[in-house]
Structure formats: C-alpha cells, structure tokens
C-alpha cells in the first residue's frame, strides 16, 4: 500500500507533511477486500449509516427536547406537532433504533456463521460486543426520554435489577436514580448519558474498523487471502457500490416504517404520560431487548436472573476461545451449521416468549431456551470444535477446492442456505 503517498498539490503536500491525514484517507480507499463477499457483509456499512443517522437526528431532537419530568412528554409532542418536520426527525430516530438493532443482529449472526470472530480477528469481535453493549444501554436510556408509561416503568424495572446485588445493591440503585425512585434526576442523567454514549460508540467503531484493517475482511469461505492480486478487489469502487446498493434497499424498508407504520414497533402505552401511581398491565422492553428479558425472567430468583442476563452477553466476549475449531466458515462445518440454526431459532423463541407474560407454557419455553442458549456456548461449541469432522476447505478464494468443486457454485449454494 502507498505508505509514501505524496499529494499532488503544493498545499496538499504542505499539509500532509504536518498532518498525514491524506495518507490515511488513501489507506482507507486502498483497502484490498476479498472479492467473494456476499450481501451479509454489507451490514457494516449499513450500521455506520445507522449510527450517523441516529447522531444527526438525535442532535436535532436535542435542540427541542426538554429533559424534565413535567415537560418531557409534552416537548416530544411539541416536536411532533409544531417543529418543522419534527415528526419526520423523531420517527427516523425512533424507528432508526429498531433498524440499527435489526442490522446489528444480522451483522453478529453473520459473524457467527462465517467464524469472523476467530483468530486473528478476536479484538474486532470484542470491540463489536462492547459496541453492542453500549448500544443496548443507549437505546434503553433513549426509550426513557419521552417519559411515557413504558419509559417510566421500563426504567423502574431495569434499574431495580441492580438492587439484587448483595450488600451494595440498594445504594447502587439509589445512586442510579439520583433519589429513592425513578424521577426527574433519573431523567436528566439518562438524557445526558444518552447524548454521550453514541460518541463513545463512534470511538469504538473507529477502533473496530481500525482493527479490521489489520487482518482485512474475513470472507464466506473463511480462508486467508493467498494471492492479493487474484483474490481481492479494491474497496473503492467495487465494495462501496455494493454497500451503497444494499444500503438503499435497507433504506427502502426503513422508509416503509417511518412513513407508513411509524408506531408499529413501539408500545401504545408510551403515548400515555408517565404516572408513578399506575402500573401498566404488562411491562415489556422494546423488541430488540426481548431475548434478554426472557432470560432474566426465566430464573425464579432475582439475583440469579440478573447474573444470567449479564452472563448471556459477556459469554459472547469469550466466544473466540470457546470455539477452537481452526475452520472458520460454517460452510465447511456441517454439524456446527445445524447448531448455528438451532441457536438462531432459540434466540427468536426467547424473543417471542420475552414479549409474553411469564407464566405457563411461555415460562417453560423461556427456561428451556435459556438453558439451550448457555449450553450452545459452554458445552456444544467447546466439544464440537474438538470432535467435528470438517469438510476440505478450498486452496484459495479463486482456486477450486481440493475435491474439484468450482468456487462459484459453492458461493451460490451458500447464499441459498442463508
């Protein structure tokens, strides 16, 4: 790559000698990318778009929003009614959160399927998990800001979780609340943090991409680049245009929500102003947190539930070491592939029961699915990665496999599978 890139203009050279910003941008566009990436790889770009879109709409909303328990609800309605295109900006922001999570879940499961978390990309994976964790915190606090019934009671349920911690639990909860119940101090600090966290995410995203640029992209067959000249294409224009195409398709779906079903992903109770004296019948978080909510409620003991909830996220950080298989892509791991799909269904089932009352059959399914979730990572993967008989991997991205199957067909069949 052009380490010794020289700008053509005089000013460019003068500037670049003092701050090599242009060299950096050249480095970004020069990025050689495997040529066999499929559309599951376009979600990185889509997520970057989501983050920037959330930050921009969020900054505008912040200009009109009033973070006060008595005024927050009405200030949101002021945005919806009187601010020019305020309804559009708010609907982009609120539906944008859902689209952000939709994209991040696809991105994470893509990584699980193609083994992108494996050596040498462990740091990318860990950074990604930290981003995901911050996203959940940000989304949760953002949901509190309209100060509707679900905002208030969601905040009450989640912050109360910390009271399960022995000895210091109560102090921590009071500290989070800024008082003895969810109230105005809770709202103002959540607003402050909701404004801060996206920039932390942005910082982590830069590191995430930086770490990605060291080994380069993984790819559907999961093998290293052998001959850069044959196996890769320049990031620009080949990947940029593919990412743009996928982003546009994503935006069409996104627009469908914004313009024609803007409230379908939210809960109607959040259009009722927060009332500490009236508890809603069912307190449910937003859809993207439901699997974790199901895990939390599947344990009869509060502390146990909280521990499992956090464990379910932190276990993912250890994934690169739980799965020791040398073969990355599930295409060549016939048994892992089955378990991958079972995990997908397991998480979907958890999400479904998370939305239902924790009783009867729902509770039973939640418990079975929770146990399976942990078994997948703690038992199945460590054992499987040692005993599984993997299929032969191709010599290179462009070369046929040892068995003689041409590469193109393989990629096609893979697409159908996903």
């Amino acid at each position, binding site marked *: 790559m052009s380490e010794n890139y020289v700008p053509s203009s005089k000013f460019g050279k003068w500037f670049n000698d003092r701050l090599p910003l242009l060299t950096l941008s050249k480095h970004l566009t020069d990025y050689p990318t495997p040529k066999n990436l499929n559309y599951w790889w376009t979600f990185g770009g889509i997520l970057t778009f989501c983050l920037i879109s959330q930050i921009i709409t969020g900054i505008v909303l912040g200009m009109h929003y009033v973070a006060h328990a008595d005024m927050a609800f009405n200030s949101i309605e002021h945005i919806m009614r009187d601010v020019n295109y305020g309804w559009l900006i708010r609907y982009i922001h609120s539906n944008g959160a859902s689209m952000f999570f939709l994209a991040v879940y696809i991105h994470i499961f893509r990584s699980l399927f193609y083994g992108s978390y494996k050596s040498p990309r462990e740091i990318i994976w860990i950074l990604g998990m930290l981003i995901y964790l911050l996203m959940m915190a940000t989304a949760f606090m953002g949901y509190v800001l309209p100060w509707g019934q679900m905002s208030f009671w969601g905040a009450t349920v989640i912050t109360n979780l910390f009271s399960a911690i022995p000895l210091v639990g109560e102090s921590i909860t009071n500290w989070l609340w800024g008082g003895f119940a969810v109230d105005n101090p809770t709202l103002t600090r959540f607003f402050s943090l909701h404004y801060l966290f996206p920039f932390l995410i942005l910082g982590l995203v830069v590191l995430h991409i930086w770490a990605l640029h060291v080994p380069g992209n993984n790819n559907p067959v999961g093998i290293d680049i052998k001959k850069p000249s044959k196996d890769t294409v320049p990031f620009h224009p080949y990947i940029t245009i593919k990412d743009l195409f996928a982003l546009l398709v994503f935006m069409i779906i996104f627009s469908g929500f914004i313009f024609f079903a803007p409230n379908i992903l939210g809960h109607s109770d959040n259009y009722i102003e927060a009332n500490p004296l009236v508890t809603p019948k069912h307190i449910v978080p937003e859809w993207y947190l439901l699997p974790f909510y199901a895990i939390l409620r599947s344990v009869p003991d509060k502390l146990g539930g909280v521990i499992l909830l956090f464990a379910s996220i932190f276990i993912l950080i250890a994934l690169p070491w739980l799965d020791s298989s040398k073969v990355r892509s599930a295409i060549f791991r016939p048994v892992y592939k*089955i378990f991958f799909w079972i995990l997908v269904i397991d998480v979907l089932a958890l999400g479904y029961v998370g939305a239902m009352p924790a009783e009867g059959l729902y509770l039973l399914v939640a418990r079975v699915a929770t146990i399976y979730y942990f078994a997948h990572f703690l038992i199945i993967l460590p054992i499987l990665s040692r005993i599984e008989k993997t299929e032969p991997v191709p010599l290179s991205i462009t070369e046929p496999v040892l068995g003689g199957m041409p590469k193109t067909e393989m990629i096609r069949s893979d697409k159908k599978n996903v």
Partner: protein
Amino acid sequence: MCNTQTKSRTIFLSLIFLLFAFNQAQSEEKIKPLEVDWTFKGITGKFDRASLQRGYQVYTEVCASCHSMNLLSYRNLGEKGGPEFSVDQVKAIAANFEVEDGPNDEGDMFTRPARPSDKFVSPYPNVQAATAANGGAYPPDMSVLVKARKGGSDYIYSVLMGYEEPPQGLELDDGVYYNKYMDGQKIKMSNPLSEGIVSYSDGTNATVSQMAKDVTTFLTWSAEPHLETRHKLGLKVIIFLIIFTILVYLSMRRLWSRIDSEK
C-alpha cells in the same frame, strides 16, 4: 446430515407455531374490535375533511365536557391536513372560550376570549378536579388517545359502539357501565352518544355510528396531525429510492462484470 437439520428445524418451528396458536387461543377470549374502512388507512390515506369538521363538533359538544385536549391549539383547526376551518371560523371558534391571562399592569389576572394561538380550554382546572368530578376515574386527555390505545382508531370506534345491556348475572357498581370492547368489559364513562345528540350543521344524519366515526376521525387527526404530509412525502421518498436503487444496481452490475469475467 441434511435430514437432522431439517428435522430439528421442523421441531423448533412447530414449537413456535404451537406458541402462536396458544397465544391466539388465549386472545380469542377478548372480543375483536370492529373494523372500519377508514379513509386515512393505507399508503395514500387522507382524512375526510367534512368528517373531521363534524368530528370536532361532536368533540366540542359531547366529549369536551369531561375530556381535555391540551396538546391542541385552536389554530390547529385551520391548518393544512386537518379540519381546515377557515381563518375566520377558527377565530370565531376560539372566541367562544374564555381563557385566563395576565398578570396585567396592575398585577391582576384577568380573563379574555381565546385566540387561535391559545391551547384548547380544559373542562377542569386540574387532574384532581377532573377525577373528583367523575367518580374517581380521570377522563383521559384525548390529544394522543388514538396512539395511546392498542388497536388505535378501530378500538376507539368500537368502545363508542360497544355499550350494551350487561349479561344476566353481572352486577355492576354505581357509575360503572358495561362495554364489550373495554378491557374487563367495564367502563366508568356512561354511553356518551345517542341518536341526534348533536345536530350536524351540514345536514348529515347524526346516527350513533356516524358520530362515532366522525369523532374517531377527528381524534386520529389530533393524535397524528401530519399524517397526510407523511403519506405524501413517504410515497415520493420511496419512489425516489426505488429508482435510485435500480440505477445503482445497474452500475454495480456493470462495474463488477469486469471482475466476474476475469476468471
């Protein structure tokens, strides 16, 4: 191999299906709300202007004696996409209400006729007064009511149409009424609509279902005043995006054909 995969998938899918079926069976105990073919439904949906104006009449003559709408101003009644009363009509409507203003130069509060820029005048000075005057049940503010209830417009319409004689054997307390679409079938609001309770200025026959439709249309607008703009803009945005996507797709195909033909 493939067999095991399909098998396990089938098992899980049928389990999920079972759950849905179970849920369906549970929710069937609740009565499904009536479905109305609203003009504002669908991607090109618009409000029926005349219905909005009639709906405002129902609100102001019937509902407004208990329910506030404190997110709306009189000026909203004349804005585009709403009932679209003329400027003079809006001024005349506002002038019917007295609002407290002040303090004046002597430091006293005084009342004056409302102006279009004023918020809708509430029937009660505060929530406590409203609650006390209505047998302990606060009549909810109706500004965003349609969005604050599951089922939206259909649900509001259904509740207005859902008053019935209670089934035999059901004892109702004083001030509690039977309504088959309400949660728990009990409601503290007496049937607000009866044939001819308002006389429409445009000559429309004021049947209960007509009034219920009109006032629900009005409430849907008040909850989502920019619905028409949203639908119109949405259509443009999506058409633009589709054309742009096709162009980008074709450019992408052309660009990648160089790579695809290399091997």
